[in-house]
């Protein structure tokens, strides 16, 4: 059973309204692209409007998804391809209403995809992955349209299309940089930093003396700023990736320490009492009770660190490197005004970082399956 929420109704309405205000624009000379698509949309729009107004309808309206999709297929290419036609002039107002309506429709589609329970497992899975994709594409779309429509100087922010062209033409460079920064510095530093934070947290937990002595000092390390630390590490560990590892270690250490310490404190007193009745050793209690209970916290740190490590390594490369690496490339290409290359490098970083995060999140789901945040998210 599905009814339209008021938000969805609103989105459908503005999309529909836009649709009619757009027609005058079709006559103007600078619109290019497949205009007929817009006319094909008419019946679908009317159909959806009709349904959205009948709020109390209880049966699902699968057509609404299709309508939203069709709308996007019709109008996104029109708005994109006519960007060239405007030249150096500013696009007319109803061009912008169309853009807004496209974004609204994309959001509507997302709302629909994620709020309905599809019977078919395949469709459900498709909907699951489509949502972030659609969101991302709308961001890119908006970016493209704004940078080109508003004639933003490209040295400030290049449009995605340009970044993409640059990206596919510089794959070997990007791959070399990725190897240097991600595979060597980030992975090693992440493992070492998280490992160290974890071990220190355990040591602190083991010894009350350390807990009182080391934890306040641990706070001290928490904000050693990369900018200050990176030159020192370059001085100590040389120009190559080893010094970046050191920076990443410092950046990831504290979140891990804090989260592990909190996690180890997260057991309830009855759970601890049970262990006491078994006269379990400290180590047994740790492995069998406190660590499992701490996993949700530890994974928080692992997730935060997965992005911090990348930022740390890249920023550290601003302070002296061999002439390869994502940070090196970014800093030099900014100076050369090759802003598209900078963003291509950023895109690689974003994909790599998100994938890294995703892997950590997947492991988290498997390990902390029992935690209400995972259990409830799955059943609701």
């Amino acid at each position, binding site marked *: 059973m599905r009814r339209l929420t008021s938000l969805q109704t609103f989105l459908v309405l503005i999309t529909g309204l836009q649709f009619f205000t757009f027609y005058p624009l079709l006559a103007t000379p600078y619109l290019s692209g497949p205009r007929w698509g817009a006319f094909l949309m008419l019946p679908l729009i009317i159909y959806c409007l009709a349904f959205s107004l009948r709020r109390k309808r209880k049966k699902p309206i699968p057509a609404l998804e299709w309508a939203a999709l069709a709308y996007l297929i019709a109008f996104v290419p029109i708005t994109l391809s006519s960007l060239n036609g405007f030249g150096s002039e500013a696009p007319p107002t109803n061009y912008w209403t169309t853009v807004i309506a496209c974004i609204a429709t994309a959001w509507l589609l997302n709302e629909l995809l994620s709020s309905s329970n599809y019977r078919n497992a395949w469709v459900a899975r498709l909907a699951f992955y489509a949502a972030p994709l659609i969101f991302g594409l709308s961001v890119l779309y908006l970016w493209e349209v704004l940078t080109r429509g508003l004639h933003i100087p490209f*040295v400030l922010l290049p449009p995605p299309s340009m970044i993409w062209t640059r990206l596919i033409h510089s794959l070997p460079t990007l791959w070399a940089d990725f190897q240097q920064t991600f595979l060597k510095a980030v992975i090693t530093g992440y493992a070492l930093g998280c490992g160290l934070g974890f071990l220190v947290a355990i040591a602190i937990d083991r010894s009350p003396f350390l807990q009182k002595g080391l934890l306040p000092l641990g706070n001290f390390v928490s904000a050693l700023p990369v900018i200050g630390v990176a*030159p020192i590490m370059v001085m100590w560990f040389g120009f190559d990736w080893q010094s970046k590892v050191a920076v990443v270690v410092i950046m990831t250490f504290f979140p891990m320490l804090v989260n592990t310490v909190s996690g180890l404190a997260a057991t309830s007193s009855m759970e601890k009492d049970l262990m006491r009745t078994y006269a379990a050793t400290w180590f047994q209690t740790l492995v069998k009770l406190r660590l499992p209970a701490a996993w949700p916290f530890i994974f928080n740190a692992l997730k935060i660190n997965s992005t911090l490590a990348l930022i740390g390594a890249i920023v550290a490369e601003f302070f002296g490197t061999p002439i390869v690496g994502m940070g090196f490339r970014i*800093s030099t290409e900014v100076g050369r005004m090759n802003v598209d290359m900078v963003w291509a490098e950023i895109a690689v970083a974003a994909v790599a970082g998100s994938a890294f995060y995703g892997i950590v999140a997947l492991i988290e789901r498997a390990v902390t399956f029992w935690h209400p945040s995972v259990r409830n998210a799955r059943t609701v």
Partner: protein
Amino acid sequence: ADKVVLQLKWVTQAQFAGYYVAKDKGFYEAEGLDVEIKPGGPDIAPPQVIAGGGADVVVDWMPSALATREKGVPLVNIAQPFKSSGMMLTCLKESGVASPADFKGKTLGVWFFGNEYPFLSWMSQLGLKTDGGPDGVTVLKQGFNVDPLIQKQAACISTMTYNEYWQVIDAGIKPEDLVTFKYEDQGVATLEDGLYVLEDKLKDPAFKEKMVKFVRASMKGWKYAETNPDEAAGIVLENDSTGAQTEMHQKRMMGEIAKLTAGSNGALDEADYKRTVASLMKGGSDPVITKEPVGAFTHEITDAALK
């Protein structure tokens, strides 16, 4: 007063003494200008700032300005207070570098962020590859300081005559232990520290007028600084809000800078320009600029200013 925003290429130091002196001594005010000087830093690309509307005029090096111009941000040189280049490569004698022929197989520290162009064109003139292979040189992206040389992580590093070189000396290494190669002497010097504005803004006569006044006052500042280096250094120190500069260093820097600005009255020497362009277009497989720039400089402003 007319507002002018000037974006420097680097942090507040004697390298920009002329502008600070002009402001401090009231030369700008006398022209009816209200000038705001924005210090730069390692992450600030002046062309980006001017393209984003954050400044009216910027200090930049010509290689970077020309490269930017080719990228579609039409920068125009309106004045060139620096006659000669202060860039050089400083090597430790003990690393075995005595002449450019000894570079092969060595590690060299270079500044990037648009400052690497002169180095790259020099290397391509020497026929040395910069990708770290056996018959080329290994290039390091050097940070902002001279540590790589002191730590012996590199055989040679980039220095400016007025700044980093003295830091090496300050670190306790004697001039006899060093070998230096000035770009000026190697025939690969490019123009440094010029004043650049956006081309389309120059179409506006009011703006042009403002720039004339600005250049006139700035040059007055520069000449004052040349003749009164100690006072100029003091003015720079006062304007340094980080409080990190030392008096000794700034005075020395001012002395060196004066040597570089000495030959210029502010007008760009076309011969220097031609040499810079030629050197940039020679850059081997990956030249800095691919075609002869058109309209990258104008004498209109300096002509009016120096009348």
